[in-house]
Structure formats: C-alpha cells, structure tokens
C-alpha cells in the first residue's frame, strides 16, 4: 500500500531526501494566491464574462433590487424615504397583518384563504383534465382528425389574458332594461343551472360564481395546450407494450393501468412539481381583470390585495411598502412548496426538476 505522503511528496535522488512534488507545488500556489488565479482565468476568457454581464445586470436591477425593497416590510414604512434611511421596526407589519384584529388583518386572511382555495381547485381540476385529454387524443388513429381536434383545443391559449377575460366578461355580462344578458348566462338560465334573476344580475357580480368562472375559463384556455406534453409521452410508448398486454388478456382499463400510466408517470411527476411550485403564484392578472368590488369575498388574492391596499391601483388608500409583507409571506410559502415538492419527488422517483 502506497504511503499517503507520496501524494504530495516525492523522493529526490540528488539530495537523498523527500521534497514537495511539482503538482502539489501548483496546488499550493493556487491555494495561496487564489484570487490571482481567478483573475488570470477571467482575463484569459474575458469575452465570456462580458457576455454574461447584460443578463446579470437585468436580473440584478429588476429581480434582485425589488427584493432589497422588501426591507421596507421590516421598517417604519414610508415610500417617500428610501429604504436605507427608514427606521427599523421589526415585525410590526407582519404582526398587524396576521393578528391585527382590524379590517386589514381580516382582509389579509380572506386573501390568503382565497389564494389557497383558487390554487387548490386549479390543482384538482386543472391538472388531471389535460392528462385525460391526452388519453383521448391517443384514441384517434387518423392523423388528420387528430390535428383538427388539437388545433381547436389549443386555440384559446393564443389569446392574451386581457382578450380572454374580455370575452368571458362579455359572455356572462349582466342584462339591463334595454339589453339582454350574455349568451352563456342565457344558456345557463335556460338550462336551469341558475335562476334568470341571478343570471341577469351578472354572474361576475356574484361572489358565488367567481371560483367556477375562474376555473372553467382556465380549463377552456389551457387544457388543450397543457395536454401536449402528456400526449408526447403517450405516443412515445412502444406499440409492442400494448400487444403484450393484450396477449395477457388486459382490457382497456388494465392497459391504462399497467402500460400507459407507468410510462407517463415521470412526466406527470415533473408537471406536478411545476404545478405545486407555482401553487401560490396564481395569475394575479386574471383575477385583477375578472374581479370587482362585489366579488372580493371569494376573488381577492394576496397579490391583488397588496396591489389595492398599497395605493398602486390609484384607489386612494395607501399603506406604503409595509403591505408588501403580505406578498412576502405568500411567496416564501410558495418557495418552500417548490423546494419541498422537488425534494419529495427526488426521493420518491428519482425525478427532479432543479
């Protein structure tokens, strides 16, 4: 067995003694003059680092500087005074939001609950439907017919949020003395799902319908598009797997259970992690465009709450930057969720995202 010393020592025959090997001399030099070596490497490859600079600056200025502004949550917040000069006030904003006991705190908890409920419903309904759609697409053997179905179902994804919400607003709009209600409201009251009075008052003005409208329009918008990734996983399954299962006497359900599901499981896990990671990061733009004062009870989420209370939206009330504490709590929980989901997925199935 070789002496461990031999790693960094070598025998010098001329002097008859051990001396430090040349490799170790280089290692020692790097350790001693680390920054000098780093500088030399950067100078040698300077073009590479110059290329990196614009991207780093964009992220620094417009992603990381806002995080610095978050310090306002821990200070006597006043947007006129720069954050660096404000006085430290500890967790007063967090305390006020969490256990303030006043209207602000009540509204914060309502927003928090709505955020969770909207995301959770999105996960329950929005996540499985694209998978089911992909299974259905797989049943269509004719390529031309399948393309037609796919193009039709991707179509809504090409609208912007503004156009989509405008269309939804128009389809369920309220009726008045001179004008009738939206066509979807008409259909729903005609089919008996809602009473004509309720439909005529405008479904978007009724807190009881906000969540359904939000989820259904979400499915309408993106289920077809979200199914692409699952469909790609399904068509990658070799036909021989089905044949083998059929010889073993598997009917359609058994084939789904033992052939299709295991083959697309890793895709499902990855998409589920992404979904859970963005669980609390729900599209505030869509809520902002669909809600109104009548539906705050079920529609107000943390982002829109912070947006409104901060005075950004021009509503006259101003709680300053301290209100960002609300979003900060929301986003920290969101971050823990994504890291947690990723860890669990890595342990359970060796499929990880980051």
């Amino acid at each position, binding site marked *: 067995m070789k002496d461990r010393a031999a790693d960094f020592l070598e025998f010098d025959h001329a002097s008859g003694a051990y001396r430090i090997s040349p490799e170790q001399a280089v290692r020692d030099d790097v350790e001693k003059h680390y920054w000098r070596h780093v500088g030399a*490497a*950067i100078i040698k*490859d300077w073009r*590479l680092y110059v*290329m*990196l600079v*614009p*991207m780093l600056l*964009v992220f620094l*200025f*417009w*992603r*990381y500087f806002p*995080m610095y*502004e*978050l310090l306002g949550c821990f200070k006597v917040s006043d947007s006129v005074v720069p954050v660096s000069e404000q006085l430290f006030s500890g967790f007063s904003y967090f305390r006020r939001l969490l256990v303030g006991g006043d209207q602000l705190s009540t509204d914060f908890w309502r927003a928090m609950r709505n955020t969770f409920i909207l995301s959770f419903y999105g996960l329950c309904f929005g996540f499985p439907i694209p998978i089911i759609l992909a299974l*259905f697409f797989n*049943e*269509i053997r004719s390529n031309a017919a399948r393309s037609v*179905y796919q*193009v*039709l*179902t*991707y*179509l*809504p994804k*090409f*609208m*912007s*949020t*503004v*156009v989509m919400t*405008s*269309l939804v607003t*128009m389809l369920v*709009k309220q009726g008045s003395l001179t004008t009738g209600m939206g*066509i979807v409201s*008409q259909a729903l009251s005609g089919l008996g799902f809602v009473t004509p009075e309720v439909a005529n008052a405008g479904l978007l003005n009724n807190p009881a319908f906000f969540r359904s409208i939000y989820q259904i329009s979400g499915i*309408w918008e993106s*289920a077809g598009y*979200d199914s*692409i*990734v699952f469909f*790609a996983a399904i068509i990658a399954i070799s036909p021989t797997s089905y044949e083998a299962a059929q010889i073993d006497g598997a009917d*359609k359900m058994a084939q789904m259970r033992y052939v299709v599901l295991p083959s697309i499981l890793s895709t499902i896990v990855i*998409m589920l992690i992404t979904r859970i990671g963005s669980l609390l*990061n729900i599209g505030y733009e869509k809520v902002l*465009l669909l809600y109104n004062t009548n539906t705050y009870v079920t529609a107000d989420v943390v982002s829109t709450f*912070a947006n409104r209370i*901060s005075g*950004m939206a021009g509503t006259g009330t101003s709680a300053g930057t301290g209100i*960002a504490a609300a*979003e*900060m709590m*929301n986003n*920290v929980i969101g*971050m823990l969720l*994504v890291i947690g989901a990723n860890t669990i997925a890595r342990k359970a199935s060796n499929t990880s*995202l*980051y």
Partner: protein
Amino acid sequence: MKRKLETSELIFKIISYTLLTVFALCCLYPFVYAVSASISGRSAVEYGSVVLFPKDVQFDAFARMFGDNMFWNAYSNTLFLTLYGTLWSMLTAILGAYALSKRRLLFRKFFNFFLVFTMWFSAGIVPQYLNYLATKKVFTAAGITDDKWLVVIAMGMAAMNIILLRNAFEGVPSEIEEAAVVDGATEFQVLSKVYIPMSKSTIATVALFFAISRWNGYFWARQMISNSNEHPLQVFIRLRLEQYTDPEAMAGWNEAFAADSVIYALIVCSIVPILIIYPFIQKYFAKGVNVGGVKE
C-alpha cells in the same frame, strides 16, 4: 375473451370521440360567437337573439374601430414592444446562456443559482412597482421619456427561457467548437457560426415565448406607461371594455350597432393576426412545451 377486449376498446373510443368533440366545440364556440356578434345588428345583439350565425349583418362596428386613430396607435405600440422587447430579451438571453453553458466559466454554480432563485422567489408586485418607478426616474434623467423603452428594457426577462437556451447550447458537441477554435474563430464567431445555427429550433421556440409574453403584456404596461398614446393593444382593449360595459357611460349610445359589437370587433381584430401566423409557429409552440418539461 377476445369479445370482451373489443367491447372495452369500443366503449372507450366512443367516449373519447364524444367528449373530445364536445370540448373542441366549446373551445371554438366563443370565437364564432364573437365574430357573429361583431357583425350583427343592434337589436339582435342587445336582445341576445344572435346564437351562432350573424343576424342583420352590418360592418359599422369594424368601420368605427378602424376609423379610430387610438386603435392603430395601440397596434403599432404593441408591434414596437414585441419587436424591440424580443430583440433585447434574446440578445441578453443568448449571450448569457452561452456563457453559462461553458464548463470553464468560473462561479458557474453561483450564476445558475442566481437565475434559478428568481424562479422560486419573487419580491412581489409592490416592491417591483417601487423599483420600476425608480428606474423610470433614472430613464427620465437620462433623457428617455418614452415609457415604452422602460417596458422593453426592464421587463419581460424570464430565467426559464435562459435555462432552455443554456441546455440547448450544452447539447452542442464540444469537438465542433474545438475545430472552430483551431481554425482561429473568436468567441463571438464560435457563438454566431457554430452554436446559434446548431440550436436554431430552441432559439426559435424561446424567441416565440418572449414574443408572446411581450404581445400579451398588460399589467405593467398599464401601470408604467402614463401617456395614453403609448398604450399597447392589450391596455387599449381593456380600457375600451371598461368604458363600453359601463351602463352610465353608454346611456346615450344611439348608433345602428350595439356597443358590444365594438368590443367583439376589437377581440376579433386582436386574435386574427395570431391565427394568421399560427400555422407557421405551431411546431415551435408544441416543441417548447416538451423541452420545458425536461430541465437540467
């Protein structure tokens, strides 16, 4: 045994076709209705007698909109934001992703984390707003008073897209780069002559993602662009919707077409350009989702 197999297959097939057809029609219907309502007569739209096909066809709602200078203004602003915004995002993203894809880059782990962290944690709307206000002051001091440049430069960067590009660049065989370097290629030549041509389809996909988010951008454009002449299409549509669905503002409406028809016409006009280019971009769009699913 054989019979049972066929029955279950058949039942599943029937269910698939039926539900898919229903879903596809539900996806299509609102668009058909929007087109019909935009060209139907006033009473037909207001009393809800338009169901599928247009009634008492008129094109005045479209004419009204095409005659509106603000509409064309908004359209050209959106084109401006989409074009310059995509160029700026692509420039920074390609250069950055190229550097990140190189193993010899020092502190590579740190730079990657720097990007990925922004996907996990965002400061939120309020701090971002304050930050953009500060940026606006700097821009104004530098003589850039057109808020569109603020939107172009400060917004719309996405870490996810850079990671997609980085992964594509990492997939380029290093032998080709070495050969180019032996032939005397500089760093920029390696990027422009080797890496970009070899990852064309990912670059197209990422450019498409950037372009779509620029085209669709609403919230920050509305918050930060103070001059209404500089508003992009999305903000214009929303402001018109707010105006035309307000019963008080519409009390004196005495045109031959319904106010709703103008909104539907606006919706149709914003979707049509996308439908025209859809066949050309579809394959990149579909590809993008698949590369998006597999990272690292």
